[in-house]
């Protein structure tokens, strides 16, 4: 049997060219490693740009090509002309794709050499819907079964999925805009369709995050807003009205301006009927622990900075 082909999709938003060069070097090395072991037969890289002004000029694209090729067969760059968000951008990049397997990858990452091979091996299992990688330096604390890898949801910062499965469940839901929880939603719809979601600890992904002097994980104001809004969408879709009510009450009483903004926008979208529809059978796959999605081995304090 011919090894599968891989389509690597990166949605850009005001990204630094130097960072993309490092990402390109890492992707090229990880693809070469997987091709060398016969795990994949080839790979294409698709960059989709949601920025208002394109991140990359022709010269930048040429430089990226020279970094990625010849290990990667084709490198394409598209400026969407509109902010499609992370899920919407990934869907747009997957349209008309012919690769057997898709890797949705954040631009602020650096995959370790063995990442592609380890993840492709994981999604080769037909019971597996999607897989994610072990993040460093701040490891995601969600629970994963050490023996099987089964986990409540897989992270979209580095998410691998067979294309046919992606198409079967309709890809990401672009209600989750601009980012966050689109991956949780996809994971839970995959599980609703009978697939497993697994964590692959052998696949190592550097994810460019920061810690503050008190050891709290730093998120930008915008990320706090997006995360708040996305949680509200998630609780609406997966039948957790108590979490929705709790979050709105907490945001009103104690939230930062970013939380207020998220609550206000959710209420507006609710009035306009522009929120994800509740899903049949959602309770079977949705896992909330307290007011957070998924189960966790330990917690991190998060600070807006």
């Amino acid at each position, binding site marked *: 049997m011919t090894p599968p082909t891989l389509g690597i999709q990166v949605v850009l938003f005001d990204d630094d060219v130097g960072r993309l060069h490092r990402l390109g070097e890492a992707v090229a*090395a990880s693809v070469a490693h997987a091709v060398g072991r016969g795990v994949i037969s080839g790979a294409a890289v698709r960059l989709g740009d949601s920025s208002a002004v394109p991140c990359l000029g022709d010269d930048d694209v040429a430089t990226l090509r020279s970094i990625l090729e010849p290990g990667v067969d084709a490198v394409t760059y598209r400026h969407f002309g509109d902010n499609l968000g992370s899920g919407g951008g990934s869907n747009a990049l997957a349209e008309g794709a012919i690769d057997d397997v898709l890797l949705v990858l954040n631009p602020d*990452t*650096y995959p370790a050499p063995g990442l592609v091979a380890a993840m492709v091996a994981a999604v080769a299992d037909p019971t597996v819907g999607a897989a994610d990688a072990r993040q460093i*330096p701040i490891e995601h604390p969600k629970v994963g079964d050490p023996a099987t890898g089964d986990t409540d949801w897989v992270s979209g910062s580095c998410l691998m999925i067979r294309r046919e499965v992606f198409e079967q469940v309709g890809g990401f839901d672009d209600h989750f805009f601009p980012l966050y929880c689109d991956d949780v939603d996809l994971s839970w719809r995959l599980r609703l369709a009978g697939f497993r979601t697994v964590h692959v*600890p052998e696949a190592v992904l*550097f994810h460019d995050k920061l*810690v503050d002097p008190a*050891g709290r994980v730093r998120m930008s104001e915008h990320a706090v807003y997006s995360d708040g809004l996305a949680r509200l969408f998630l609780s609406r879709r997966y039948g957790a009205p108590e979490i929705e009510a709790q979050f709105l009450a907490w945001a009103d009483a104690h939230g930062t301006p970013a939380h207020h903004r998220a609550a206000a926008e959710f209420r507006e979208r609710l009035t306009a009927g522009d929120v994800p529809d509740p899903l049949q059978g959602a309770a079977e796959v949705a896992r909330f622990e307290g007011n957070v999605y998924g189960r966790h*081995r330990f917690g*991190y304090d998060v600070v807006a900075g």
Partner: protein
Amino acid sequence: MKYDFEFSWASTYGFAATLVARTCERGLVVDLGCGAGSFAAPLDELGFDYLGFEYDPESVALCRSRGIACEPIDLADVDDTIERVTAAVGGRPVRVVSLLDVIEHLVDPERVVAGLRRLVEALTVDGRAPRVVVSIPNVAHADLAVKLVAGRWDVVDVGLLDDTHVTLFTERRVRDTFARHGFAELAANDVVIPDTEQQYPADHPAVAREATLSAHLRAVRRRADTSGDTYQFVRCYEVGPVTGESPPTLADRADTEGPRLSVVVHVRDGAGVGDLLTCLAAQHDRDLEVLLVSTSSTVDAGAAVAGYDDAFGSLVRVVPPARCLADACNAALDLVGGRLVAFLDESTVVTGRWSAGVHEAAAAFPGRALRCATVVQPAHVADGRIVPTEGFGPDRTAAGDEIGRLLGGEPPGLDGLVVPAAALDGLGHRFDPSLGDVAATWLFVLRLVADTGLVRTAEVDAVRRGAEPSVDDERDRAAWSAVAAVLDQWPYLLPSGAASQLGALHELRRERDTAVERADAAEARVDALERSRYWTATAPLRRLGAARHRLGRGGGR
């Protein structure tokens, strides 16, 4: 006449003659700047022929009156020198050209050494060039170094600071000057004199050898390089390739060669090295090199390097495993090319801006050692990987209280330490493998920090994953004893903040002593009571009381 020395084998000329005898074929010696010809007699004794050349007409006459062959020359006129020397040699094969205590009297040593090279070529017969033997006083002698710190530079009639020396040499300048003109060093027979004529005023605390300040300065000088006690460099050269380098200029002072940061990674069991390498590969500022050190030949650090992009792969070197961490780190320090050297444990991971943050801090605090602000995350090793088990906690090494941590039996905290390479190369800081790794590391950190001070970086860019090392009293006592034994030999100037720490320690001791005194007094009172007649007489009553108490408690089961 100032330089009409009587020859002695213990003098510079004696050392030079010994070096000639050891390294050069018997034959004719051309001695440039021969003075009163003091070098002729020992060479004659050793079976060499001698031909002296001298600028001072009085000295030429004196040589001739003593029956020593001597011709006048002016070394400042290279062409004339070559002409006169070749004429006087008259085609005989010359085995040695010597310049003893000459070059420091000439204003343009570059021109002289360039001329020397031409002369040696002119004297080459059948492809055989004479060897060159020089003696040059060392201006970086410890006696001069300690005096200069105290503002003294005592130029006198003879010795290291002779009033006719117009060019001053350190070992490095000697080496570089001769190398530039294609002289390869063959052998050395330096004159080593720890106590020179410059050791005055004898009661100055910077000068008097046993005084604390002097001992400290001399210890620093001793670590910096090996030439602190060298009085004269006595070296033998043969013609080699010309490096073609220009003499240094002020513009060369910033060394722009090599990476800006060398990262020395301690690989223990290999469980974390892949994660750390990935973090380093992802640095925003990748102007760095990585050296992997280990003490176990069973850990294949090289395997962890495989597969990275070529650009990063070329930045990583695997240092051959050593028998202890001290040896491994020293081997790495001999290889590093960066202007900053960072130590990381493989269990640590760093954010993308870590190296940029190190550079920012180093630029803000030049010459200082840095401690990378770090958070600690409890973790264990499973399936060959480091698995975090909890969220982040504070790092005990962060406070910068090195003495307090040492006395508290804590590990030295090499992880996250960043050191200016100038402190390593310039001041010779290394690990002492004879002490054991814990003590060697402590001593390295303490001595380094005494020279540099220690600054904590502002932002947390590192996560140290793993169990906090347990305090092992016995091991720590042993380590502390070893550290103390070395520190006792060394006039340790306390780092800033030490006075308060010592004050706090003193306070603690006083509290403890008071508590002990109170306890002793109470014990004495109990003793007195037990020996009293009342206590003895009431003993049966107390036994009865105790028995009743036991019965009363025993109702349950």
